[in-house]
């Protein structure tokens, strides 16, 4: 694992669905399950709302990782939003590869409203993977391409 630059704190964006993953995250709070504070969450009604451009904008803004989390298949409050989102993630993952970003920086998971513990585990995994990958090339302070963006 390459040594990460001093002072770098991973900046991870999570876009999570209101009915399942946001509720699961709240449950982890209620249960006081501790996990690292490196993730900032934005709430949408359904992962179907997540436009591929939101993720590309996040990465070009210097996000080190992006997590999209919604309901398990079959549980979506709007029936199919999570299926559509999952399909889009494959598209975005290939885009990331093309612009030289390790596609492990983008992750989609499925966490239900009753899976508080799983949410904490997902956050830990994402933070660990981000530490492993180090700062994103577009990271404003530490990325190699910071002057390009």
């Amino acid at each position: 694992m390459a040594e990460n630059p001093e002072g770098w704190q991973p900046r991870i964006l999570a876009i999570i669905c209101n009915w399942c993953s946001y509720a699961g995250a709240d449950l982890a709070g209620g249960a006081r399950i501790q996990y690292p504070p490196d993730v900032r969450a934005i709430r949408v009604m359904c992962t179907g709302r997540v436009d591929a451009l939101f993720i590309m904008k996040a990465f070009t803004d210097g996000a080190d990782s992006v997590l999209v989390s919604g309901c398990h298949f079959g549980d979506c409050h709007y029936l199919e939003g999570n299926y559509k989102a999952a399909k889009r993630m494959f598209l975005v993952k290939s885009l990331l590869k093309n612009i030289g970003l390790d596609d492990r920086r983008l992750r989609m998971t499925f966490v239900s409203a009753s899976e508080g513990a799983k949410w904490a585990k997902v956050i830990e995994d994402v933070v660990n993977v981000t530490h492993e990958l180090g700062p994103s090339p577009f990271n404003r302070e530490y990325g190699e391409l910071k002057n390009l963006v």
Partner: protein
Amino acid sequence: MAEAVSPTTSEKPKAPRIGVYVCHCGTNIAGSIDINAVKEYAKTLPNVAVVDDYQYMCSTPGQGKIETAIKEQGLTGIVVAACSPRLHEPTFRTATKEGGLNPFRFEMANIREQNSWVHMHDQAGATEKAKDAVRIAVAKATLLEDLYPKTVPVEHAAMVVGAGVAGMQAALDLANSGIKTYLIEKAPTIGGRMSQLDKTFPTLDCSQCILTPKMVDVGRSENIVLMVNAEVEEVQGYIGNFDVTIRRKATGVLSPKEAEARGIVGGGCTGCGDCAPVCPVTKPNIFEMGMAPRKAIYIYHPQVVPLLYTIDWDACVKCGLCVEACGTKQAIDLEMKDELVQVKVGTVILATGYEVFPIENKEEWGYKRYENVISSLEFERLICASGPTGGHLVRPSDGATPKRIAFVLCAGSRDSTGVGKAYCSRFCCMYSLKHAHQIMEKIPGAVPYIFYMDIRSFGKAYEEFYYRIQDEGAKFIRGRVSNIQEDPDTKNLRVYAEDTLLGRPMEIEVDMVVLAAAVQPTELTNKTRKLFGVSCSQDGWLLEAHPKLNPCGTTTAGVFVAGACQSPKDIPDSVASAEGAASAASIPIHRGEVELEPYYAMCVEDKCAGCGMCVNLCPYSALALVEKDGRTVMQVTEAKCKGCGTCGGFCPGGAIWMNHFATPQIVAQIDAFLLGGEQ
């Protein structure tokens, strides 16, 4: 990117002035976040006009701060950094509205459930995260616009799925409050599990005696449309406007009304039972847990409601003998086909109940391997006067009356091996005490051995009932049964456990073993719940909206849960939760209309290329292509759109504006987080 303004906004937006309010929530937030640091930081954010904090923002004085600030400072948006929006968004929207500002110009920053509570030992990290959360919320609040909730009419009808004691109670309450209620039951009769019980604890009422009056009321109530042998096939729509398709399975037997509709005067099944004796095919009656026979044309038991015979098509050989026996009533139609019925209802209550866990999966107790090991529900039928043995408890192996009976509690419950169920099934302790009483009462000299870990006698008069049964002579052994061995000749059973209070292993030879098996949702529950968009908790039971604040509701507006389908419940709790669900379900109906959050999509027509990609993305078919002054553009039927945003997240031209979650608002949040707010 689309302009930062929705297509319908006419006047130029005023210069943004945002009020930021940071809540201490006692020590819940202040305990691990530096409130002042967040406040000072908020003051440095663009467009922020007012920053304040308070011990409990959700309290009246807290809300008062928002109202006065809006009036005095002319604020255009409010941000409250406190708990989860799922908890107090409605509270602060009302406060915003009281202040004279449109309630949707409000955004919450979740710095409790998703911050202070989960980063208790990292104040620096938590405070940093809180600052970011406020900055993100302010960025969105700056771009929020006036929105007006859609009011939708509510159909003056309700549906209850499942007609056990909970479903029946809910349907009766709804019907008695003047609401037309469709009661859907998959079995040929209503009554569910309760009709299979002999006595009920702690009062030892006969179950059928206290249930039959309710069953008759359901049968007679004009406001209840009872459909047995029926399953939910498909569900469209949303609160107030559920279009439900019911599959009424062909039973081969016409009710008097159905016969009349076919012009058969005075015909239809009267439950006389002439058909059954002539029927040549016999099958096990699952109501009697397979311990009694019934013909291919059958009723479960004499008190069925509706009193109609049913044909088991897998068994029926279509010999027609029953048709002749039926004679002039002409109630039997062997070519009857399933029927799909369309029904429109305002709210739905799921009361799909429970079934017994397949306890043979726990091999160590030998269920289905040893003849004299039976399940608790089988015991109920054997001890029941209307049961297969007329209430005489007999050993399946030789029909003898058992004298020494072992009751194995926690059979499959409180089991985290992945084979059984991790949860406590709640009412097995109490019915095992009842079973012990019943055998001591009915069989002179009978000795019940109750193998338990804890006797959970939690309800009203439950502990006193436990006291009474112990006093009557039941033997209690504090030890979970390790395994059971059968004596091949006598078919007696040796039960091995440790009396942990005595500290000695025990081998007790008994004539019969009753397994107080765990319970689980019925087989059909998973399919039905998905049709209504209701998710289940990790233990497989239906997930309530909130275990304490909204136990009868679900996250799907207009769909409620009652009875054991939400989690194991005894009869008192099932009936109470049914009454709760019925009252909750009747509110929208009585109000006649319901407000829906105005998160619907809108088409930015001058950007729309009319490609139609979004149309088939919508699961509610709320989008359509229309001709508008020479161009094909997309059009949204607002009533159908539920605001999921799947179309908004895809439109290649950025021509779809999602109210309250518009693309500029979300991008502003992303930029606020990653670029410190500058665009």
